[in-house]
């Protein structure tokens, strides 16, 4: 790598930005290649693909990453041949390009860490270059001739930013030229920003010769056109105008010299290329790159602000001064809006994560000799970036598992009277304040007997004991479980499924598995939309405070009965519009020893498809809830997912509606329930807050 010629500090500063952008381009190349497999002749995809590769090559050139430039050049040459229609994209070629793309990724990574580029990968690379050149139809001897065309015909390379300053000559008007037309032409090359007319040199009316031009302009131009093309726009006035043209770095991409060669056509004859460049620019200007840490800092501060705001409101209410209360309420509602928009900043669509699996499915299926199509649904469903990041690995494992264990080979599927091509679906949707991610396959399903047999062998369940059906399947998530007949390098080592569950639970989510023998399996993952702040519904039981996620609350009913009726299984329940509703009595569940009030309320909660009630003493209203994790002592508390500090300084515990649902469905247990230490719920001090 010949970075020696470059200023070291510049490279050190700008390199991470290059690497991150290059990785984006590489990811885009991968997606485009996969899309092209369905539509091999799609010109737009091919153009986009070429642009991505060209951008990587161009920016690598700036940093003197010769290895990247040289290798990407071969890829680009082949892509150019594809665009021309001289070469047709076959599945084999697609695989070759995917491998080449992996190689580019490796090389880009090596830019930051030299050790990443090993001798083995170098020989692999040489082999790839040879195959790429062969596919592009040029032998190594001809290679030099392939060089210039690659960059030359480029309609839209990378979009670059130029700072232009132009002072038109005094005779411009007299020569029949109109600066307005010139600016219009130049503007047509891309997008103009910050156009500013400098009229300082224009004399007043008395002194003005109306036919003398005194105008000067400064502006930014974002365009894919080369320096020559921009200068050509001024060619008619070039003789007597002062033009300064500066490229604005650093995200700019210096195209390799050949790209600056005069283009065959004027921009006006290539409206499509320009339109694309314009669109690309539009995309760019709508986004700002922000470091995730900064955003996290803001969100942490916001959490403090919410708590402090609640405290101030409480004090205002105690002071009984109407105006102060009103002012505080306004602040509170503003904080709420700020909170919502700030959290929105971190929301990203999950589709990006999903589409990463296209490649995984393609390669893994091929490796296993299976034919699988991946369907993605609800890719635009948004959730917190930190959740997305942490769900990617568990998803990967589940997808691989489905490919390895769930889906059958074409022969097996034919024998079972199913279509030869298996189907794997990744879907996402919002469901009462959480996101539901599903991984569905139409494979062979899970063999309950096999699972049970294995559980007995491993001692996960006592020999001979048969748990309920639903529980048998979920044994798969127990540590040290594997049903694979043979251990493959994909899955089946028995590591993972328990880790998957642990990771999901760490995100306050849940995972459940359902399966029909011979027709397929479905894994449901429920995750909270955000890990930071939620709208809560505050309730009180005696002196203790609890919070429900507001989205889960359906309604509240009054209960005047001192004791609730019980059903046949000994659960508390009430009748609500003709249906029996199981009810959790918090006083019993957590052994709270404050006396029960005469009247109590039942909060009706929705969890997945079920409803249940929770009996509470007092309804304290909506509450902006900053979620703090539970301290280690309280982590085993069932039905509770976190804690929050109220305005008064008290601690409220936040319910996990899904696990509380399980508790509601269970018959009553005697007081002194081992998972509910009495002291824990009565504790008035903060349960170890790490932040």
């Amino acid at each position, binding site marked *: 790598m010949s970075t020696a010629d470059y200023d070291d500090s510049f490279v050190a500063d700008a390199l991470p930005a290059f690497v991150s952008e290059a990785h984006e381009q590489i990811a885009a190349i991968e997606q485009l290649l996969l899309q092209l497999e369905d539509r091999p002749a799609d010109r737009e995809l091919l153009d986009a693909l070429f642009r991505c590769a060209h951008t990587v090559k161009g920016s690598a050139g700036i940093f003197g990453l010769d290895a990247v430039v040289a290798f990407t050049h071969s890829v680009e040459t082949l892509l150019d041949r594809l665009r021309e229609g001289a070469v047709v994209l076959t599945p084999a070629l697609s695989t070759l390009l995917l491998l080449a793309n992996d190689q580019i990724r490796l090389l880009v990574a090596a830019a930051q860490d030299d050790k990443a580029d090993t001798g083995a990968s170098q020989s692999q690379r040489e082999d790839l270059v040879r195959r790429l050149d062969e596919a592009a139809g040029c032998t190594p001897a001809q290679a030099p001739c392939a060089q210039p065309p690659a960059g030359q015909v480029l309609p839209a390379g990378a979009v670059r930013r130029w700072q232009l300053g132009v002072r*038109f000559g005094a005779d411009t*008007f007299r020569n029949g030229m*109109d*600066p*307005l*037309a010139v*600016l*219009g032409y130049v*503007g047509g090359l891309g997008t103009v920003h*910050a*156009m*500013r*007319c400098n*009229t*300082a040199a*224009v*004399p*007043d*009316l*008395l002194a*003005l010769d*109306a*036919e003398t*031009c*005194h*105008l000067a*302009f400064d*502006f930014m131009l974002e365009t894919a056109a080369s320096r020559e093309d921009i200068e050509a726009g001024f060619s008619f006035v070039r003789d007597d105008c002062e033009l300064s043209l500066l490229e604005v770095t650093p995200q700019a991409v210096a195209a390799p010299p050949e790209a600056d060669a005069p283009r065959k056509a004027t921009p006006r004859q290539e409206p499509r290329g320009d339109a694309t460049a314009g669109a690309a620019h539009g995309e760019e200007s709508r986004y700002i790159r922000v470091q995730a840490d900064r955003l996290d800092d803001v969100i942490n501060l916001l959490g403090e602000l919410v708590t402090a705001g609640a405290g101030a409101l409480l004090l205002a209410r105690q002071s009984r001064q109407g105006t102060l209360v009103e002012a505080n309420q306004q602040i509170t509602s503003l904080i709420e809006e700020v909170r919502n928009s700030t959290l929105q900043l971190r929301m990203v669509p999950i589709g990006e994560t999903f589409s990463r699996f296209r490649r995984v499915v393609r390669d893994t299926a091929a490796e296993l000799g299976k034919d699988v199509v991946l369907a993605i649904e609800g890719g635009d469903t948004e959730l917190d970036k930190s959740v997305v990041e942490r769900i990617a690995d568990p998803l990967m494992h589940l997808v691989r598992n489905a490919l390895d264990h769930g889906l059958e080979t074409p022969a097996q599927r034919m024998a079972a009277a199913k279509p030869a091509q298996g189907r794997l679906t990744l879907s996402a949707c919002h469901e009462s304040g959480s996101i539901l991610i599903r991984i569905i396959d139409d494979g062979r399903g899970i063999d309950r007997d096999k699972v049970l047999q294995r559980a007995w062998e491993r001692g996960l369940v006592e020999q001979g004991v048969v748990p309920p059906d639903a529980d048998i399947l979920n044994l798969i998530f127990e540590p040290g479980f594997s049903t694979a007949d043979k251990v493959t390098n994909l899955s089946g080592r028995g590591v993972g499924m328990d880790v998957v569950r642990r990771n999901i639970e760490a995100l306050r989510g849940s995972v459940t598995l359902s399966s029909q023998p011979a027709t397929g399996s479905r894994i449901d993952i429920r995750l909270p939309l955000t890990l930071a702040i939620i709208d809560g519904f505050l309730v009180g039981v005696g002196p203790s405070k609890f919070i429900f996620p507001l989205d889960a609350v359906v309604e509240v009913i009054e209960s005047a009965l001192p004791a609730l009726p019980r059903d046949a299984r000994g659960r508390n329940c009430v009748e609500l519009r003709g249906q029996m509703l199981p009810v959790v009595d918090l006083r019993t569940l957590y052994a709270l020893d404050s006396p029960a009030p005469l009247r109590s309320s039942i909060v009706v909660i929705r969890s997945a498809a079920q409803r249940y009630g929770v009996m509470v003493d007092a309804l304290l209203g909506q509450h902006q809830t900053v979620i703090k994790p539970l301290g280690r002592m309280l982590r085993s508390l069932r039905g509770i997912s976190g804690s929050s500090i109220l305005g008064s300084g008290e601690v409220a515990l936040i319910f996990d509606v899904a696990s509380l649902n399980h508790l509601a469905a269970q018959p009553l247990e005697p007081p002194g329930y081992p998972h509910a230490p009495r002291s824990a719920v009565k504790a008035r001090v903060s349960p170890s807050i790490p932040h």
Partner: protein
Amino acid sequence: MTDTLKLPPELTIYTTAQLRAQWLDCVGPSHLTVDASAVAEVDAAGVQLLASLASSVAQAQGTLSLLNASQPLARACLAMGVAGLPGLNDTTGATA
């Protein structure tokens, strides 16, 4: 005292010399309302003339506002980055 100046349909290099002479009378320490609704054709020379008028009025301690700028004029001013439409006020302010 308020004067009104009605701009002609053509505000281009072909008319600017003549217009400049006419407009000289409008410059004074009063408020000048420029009715720009009729402008159908405009070029950079025309915009330059307007800018010159604005700076002259400002120098004479007067004020100027541009009324009902027609589409062609508004577009030209935008493309040339002449600040502060409608009104060309910013230009006046900048040179005052």
